[in-house]
């Protein structure tokens, strides 16, 4: 058995303002993947980053080669800015993300994205390549739609996910 394909996870709540960008991007990536015949790509929408641990459970050496996680971020950039982070390898000693993003107070609702990725890494569940596509959010109001700036960033965010998947496909073909 060997690792193949990719897992795309759009994180966020659709009715919490810009928090809905993750699922919105995942839906568009799903449409694009169907058009391009990317059958080895599994695309999931979820509200809870802790779900990453369940999605990667039992994958072992049969799991995806790449995981792309799309989520709203707050980094003091302009709203709608798309940030692509390669967050290291599956090596538990390679705490790349922990070094760059404070896993922060996890809360009792589970883990934040950085916490979930680092816990998955320690538990040896992480695929060899993990890419985080973050979209700078403006607001997280209950019942609000995406802000104009974040809506405008949708094509760039989808393109960033597809680019990450294309690199994965190219690497597989080359190997």
């Amino acid at each position, binding site marked *: 058995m060997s690792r193949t394909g990719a897992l795309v996870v759009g994180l966020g709540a659709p009715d919490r303002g810009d928090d809905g960008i993750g699922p919105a991007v995942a839906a568009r990536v799903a449409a694009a993947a169907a058009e391009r015949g990317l059958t080895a790509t599994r695309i999931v929408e979820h*509200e809870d980053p802790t779900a990453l641990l*369940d999605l990667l*459970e039992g994958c072992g050496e049969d799991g995806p080669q790449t995981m792309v996680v799309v989520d709203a971020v707050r980094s003091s950039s302009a709203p709608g800015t798309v940030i692509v982070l390669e967050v290291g390898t599956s090596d538990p000693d390679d705490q790349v993300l922990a070094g760059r993003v404070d896993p922060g107070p*996890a809360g009792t609702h589970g883990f934040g994205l950085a916490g979930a990725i680092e816990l998955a890494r*320690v*538990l040896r569940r992480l695929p060899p390549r993990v890419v985080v596509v973050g979209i700078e959010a403006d607001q997280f109001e209950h019942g609000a739609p995406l802000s104009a700036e974040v809506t405008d960033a949708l094509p760039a965010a989808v393109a960033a996910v597809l680019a990450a998947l294309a690199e994965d496909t190219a690497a597989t073909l080359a190997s």
Partner: protein
Amino acid sequence: MTHKLTSGSHVLSVETLARVEGEGGMHVHVQDGEVLDVHLRIFEPPRFFEAFLRGRSYTEPPDITARICGICPVAYQMSACLAIEDACGVSVPDEIRLLRRLLYCGEWIESHALHIFMLHAPDLLGYDGAIEMARDHRALVESALRIKRAGNDLMTVVGGRSVHPVNVRVGGFHRLPRREELLALRPALVAAREESLAAMPVLSGFEFPDFDQPYLYLALDSQNGYPLESGALITSAGLRAPVSEFGTHVVESHVAHSNALHASFDGQPYVVGPLARYSLNYPALAPLAREAAESVGLGPTCRNPFKSIIVRTVELIHALDEAIAIIDAWHGAPLAAVEVPARAGEGHGATEAPRGLLYHRYRFDESGTILEAEIVPPTAQNQPAIEADLRAFVQDHLDLSHEELTRQCEVTIRTYDPCISCATHFLDLTVEQV
């Protein structure tokens, strides 16, 4: 450098509490060996759910209030349904009540597994958090994730989704789960029950501070089993009252240092949650859960907040055992929901969220439009008791270093599993040293 707090003026402070939900802090002022002020500060801006609900239809609170909290949406849905059905003069048949208990078991399993293993155990094992703990205790964390997942899957099947269930409606459910769907959950629930039982000696084997407190406990009674989706109010002072009298005993007031309201019961701080439920309803626990408690020397009452990890594990075992029992006995229901016609009036509902009793009250006009809504979450009720605990704990441990005492204060707060997001209608910890 460490120094003791027995002389001079000291402020222990934590600006942002870790491993609690929402934003809050702690501030404790010590002067010449005496604790002067203890403030649990809550920074998250108030949520105006109660105002938002006014003018909406009586059918909407279960879906709207479920959004208040990502870990206890079922609690919000259940308390809302009970209050609305109370106002409309409807009670649901036993099958629907049992299905509500089953869904609620899913929420308890998910929430308790997370708190026990990921949020409380790192404190007791001396780690900064679950990630650091997982490096040395991988099997324990893997086990926790499997247990939690059994709860998630139960929520998905009965509630429609694992995060914010969509299958609940006033009067019952939109859709009944099929027996085979429920039976498919059984192996994971049985395995989770075994793993929870196996974890009990580890989770109860820590050195807990000797810290029994004279709490006034409030919980629902066990007329329909261990308190969960229904029941009347009972207290450790011997009071028994219908849920409709909640407002005559519980008074909420604003305090300057917090966005959350502070609650008191007949003028006293009080405690809701696992310790209260357990101590007031021990005989109603599943025999397996009672045996697990007995096996580690936990008596029929518990007044030490640090031992809440043991009580939560007992409740986790109970929830898994009861979920299995409900599934085994499930043979469907004639109707997914009963009709709940609108009428003018007021209704009260209380159920046991993982963190404690959650009260809802609504007043409707004759068309079912909401005129008034009141929600009293568990963390707001516990906040004065948490402050009283901090005061007592700091006073008893002034010989500890500033750093260690601050850490222990954070641990004390986390034993309550406070949900500040819910309480803001509600944490950072500041112990002050000047």
